[in-house]
């Protein structure tokens, strides 16, 4: 997975769970460093997600917001959508809906 190209959507998955959280975080940190503006995530391939995964997304968003950018989830799997719903985080997807 190459996370260095700023234009490409970063795809994560299929597992967004605690065993993979540290690796995912590394990927996201690299992507953050390599991306100048908003970070676009393609999460359509996520089949499993837990609180650690959601926490990662929230922290990514926080990092982006702090530098004046936003997190865009351009594609989202059902599993992830349901989990976000449980946490009341449907608004994370709003940008994705608005995105072309």
């Amino acid at each position, binding site marked *: 997975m190459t996370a260095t190209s700023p234009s490409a959507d970063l795809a994560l998955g299929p597992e967004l769970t*605690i065993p993979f959280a540290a690796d995912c975080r590394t990927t996201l940190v690299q992507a953050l460093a390599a991306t100048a503006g908003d970070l676009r995530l393609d999460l359509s391939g996520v089949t499993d997600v837990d609180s650690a995964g959601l926490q990662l997304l929230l922290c990514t968003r926080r990092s982006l917001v702090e530098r004046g950018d936003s997190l865009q989830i351009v594609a989202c799997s059902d599993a992830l959508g349901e989990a976000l719903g*449980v946490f009341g985080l449907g608004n994370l997807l709003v940008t994705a809906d608005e995105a072309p």
Partner: protein
Amino acid sequence: MHRDDDAEIIAAARLGFLDEAADMLQQFEQALLVMETTPDDSENLNAAFRAAHTIKGTAGLFGCDAVVVFTHEVETLLEGLRSGTLPVTDDISAALLLGRDQMGALLEEVRTGDASPEVAARSVLLGDQLRKLYGGAPAPVAAAAVAPAAAVAAAPARGAWHLSLRFGVDALRNGLDPLAFIRYLGSMGTVNACHVMADALPTLEALDAEACHLGFELRLLTEAGQDEIERVFEFAADDCSVQILPPDADGDAFEQLLALRCEDDADAYEALLAVWARLGMRMGQVDTDAAAPAAQETLEANPAAPPVAAAPVADRRATDRRTGRDRRAPAEARFVKVRADKLDHLIDLIGELVIAGSGAQMVANQEGSPAFLECTQRVSELVQATRDGALALRMVPVGETFSRFQRVVRDTSKQLGKEIEFTITGGDTELDKSMVELIADPLMHLVRNSLDHGLELPADREAAGKAPVGRLDLTACHEGGCIVIEVRDDGRGLRRDRILGKAIERGLVPEGAVLSDAEVWQLIFAPGFSTADKVTDLSGRGVGMDVVKRNIEALRGQISLSSTEGHGTRTQIRLPLTLAMIDGFLTTVGQVHYVLPLSVVSECIAVPRECLSAPDRTCGTFDLRGEVLPYIDLALFYGVVPSADGDTTPIDQQRRSLVVVRDGAVRIGLVVDRLLGEHQTVIKPLAGIFKHLKALAGSTILGSGDVALVLDMQGLMSAALQAAHLPRPGARLAPTFANE
């Protein structure tokens, strides 16, 4: 090495926890007692709850499961009282007090490290009792409840519960997934609003991906009761702080929640209030229907819309913060953390005050004005009280040092295959902080000596007819102005003949010398002396006891050892309570002032005939009411030049005095020129160039500005005893006895 360090750090932290817990228990008990008289005092109930909660929380950190499980029951019952679902009854307060004792017992077990099945059984029993009190009570109680709101709770209405969850940092690692909890809550009813407390989250860069920083505020529509909701989080109690507010919870409950979650952080207050507003909560109002989403919309559409609600909320926050501070005040007042150097500075100042005070006293004496004398007398009493108070600030229990040996004993006994029962007594005996730190190493050495050389293997012990489990006791107690610390084992003891043999071999003792037991044991402290056949990891390198002795003597202490072969060894350390200031007894010899610690002075008498008859002898013996005691003539001992005034040379023997000083069981006499009386003494260390001087512990400054020397009792005693034991020429002995 690292393991030791870690163990020490953990042990220290654990002690901190235990001390804090002991304090919390006291607050808890206090609150329970207040509760019995004023059951409606919600502040007081909160205090009790917080104390229990803190104990539970920190106990969890240290893995004291027994404490956590039991305290949880106590806390739950208190929560019932606090939320008003249970009235305060005699039964409940009695049970809570029993619970407090049990918590104390469990914490004591943590402290001592042994777990008795009786205590565990009582935990279960009391736990059941407590559970019955909060489980069985709600229904019959609701009718009698004071708050009308409680009546609403009695009817199982489908209300909107408010849940405030904060997961601990290890929750994810421990396999707790907040997502699963909230999903499960959804199965009990409807989670109609959930908010992740995003402010608490770190940035991605700062995130440890496996740590948990998640917190939630959510509204749950359910018919389930408080018990059912609590049970969801039962097994997560350690890793999640759960606050459940029933649908009828009033403003106070939310205020308490605010205080709990935000403490004194104003920004956090604002943020949490905003979250609650978005969740559709109106504080202080009963919210039993599903209007939340609607409220949410209005609020989001027009954030500034409810000016009516905003004002009270702001007010409430202000009052809550005020009460919040008040509530915390008692806890803060109990302890004030002060930097050690500030304290040292204070002690120094008080030292100067003492000196200046005695200067004033001296002037008053010279002036001879009764009114002035009376004033200075009063001032000096106050100065003395201030000095004692200031010194007491630096006193800490010696047990802190002792308990680190628990682990040493455990590890060492495992390593050596010995079974050892280690007991500590008098751990709360207090000693100056600076000394506590300095005795740790010597004590460690003694403990290791006992473990390594003293105590035998179980098989050897049985062969010697002793119990297989060896005993090692560490005790501390106050005695006079001293603290006495003893390390005692029931091991193989010291072999007198072998020590003597070794000493003769090394030329420490002449061949064929006859020594008393005490003198033989004293040989152990000679530099480089070791009788161990082989050097082990732990001790026996021969750099032991002399270093220990030196360290102890540097603290103006003394060390003695006694042993019975086959039955064990006892090492005793006597230390003065403080190094800084003492009550002294001022004397002069020639033109030099000498100060004795007042605590060792037993009586003052005229110089006896035996001394008068031998004016050129430094040491000798005299008869004190039939008892023969050694004496030292300080003038000769220190080679004081007779007063230069001319008219008093040679010293007028008739005007001199003898001070009988006592140290432990030993008494000696000191011949001085004049007695000046009691003097508050601030001990200043002697500079390095004076180190070779015998038997001086330090110096002090008198009110007149003169310097006085502080006598070192141990040094004088050993000089006197040595002189008394040394073979003396008959010519000198004869006159002494001839006079008797």
